[in-house]
């Protein structure tokens, strides 16, 4: 087994586990954070597959922006519920 195989195995297992957690976790904010982690791990996978452009874009847009949009949606709603 080469270094590449070992890293990709670890990342692959982590990706599937985190995806499963994101789908099945009861709390919405947890699911959002798992999605963010999933996106960050996919960035590693992109770098591993020699796609730096995609990695930067996914890190900034997929992981950063999308997560913040999710969080804003949840924040705006939670305030409404407490009222």
């Amino acid at each position, binding site marked *: 087994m080469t270094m*590449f*195989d070992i890293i*990709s*195995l670890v*990342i*692959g297992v982590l*990706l*599937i586990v985190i*995806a*499963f957690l*994101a*789908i099945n976790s009861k709390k*919405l904010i947890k*699911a*959002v954070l798992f*999605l963010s982690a*999933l*996106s960050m791990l*996919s960035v590693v*996978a*992109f770098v*591993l*597959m*020699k*796609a*730096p*452009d*995609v990695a930067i*874009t*996914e890190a900034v*847009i*997929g992981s950063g*922006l*999308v997560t913040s*949009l*999710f969080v804003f*949606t*949840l924040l*705006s*709603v939670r305030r*409404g519920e407490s009222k």
Partner: protein
Amino acid sequence: MIQYVAIILFVLGLYGLLVNRNVIKMVISLNIMEIGLNLFIISIGFVYDGIAPIITSSAGTGALIYVDPLPQALVLTAIVIGVGTTALALAIAKSIHVKHNTFDLNEVEETV
């Protein structure tokens, strides 16, 4: 390896859409599906021992093996399109919440 993981992620996203009735969780599932698809597209173009498709002045273009740049360009487009749909889906989720005061589609159907 990563190719199989990508397919499983795609299918897990579909599974999430099937079992979840909460709109936020459904949008999350859509995103998981898109990440899986993006990984799959990149894995199509990967070549062992290939290098990223950027010409640097230190190396000539002759004997180097590059990974396929076209799938990378496609994924860039797909990621941005995914963000567009996610933002829209969240805005719709928010307006569902304004109207029905819940994110759960089961509860929405009860109130209607």
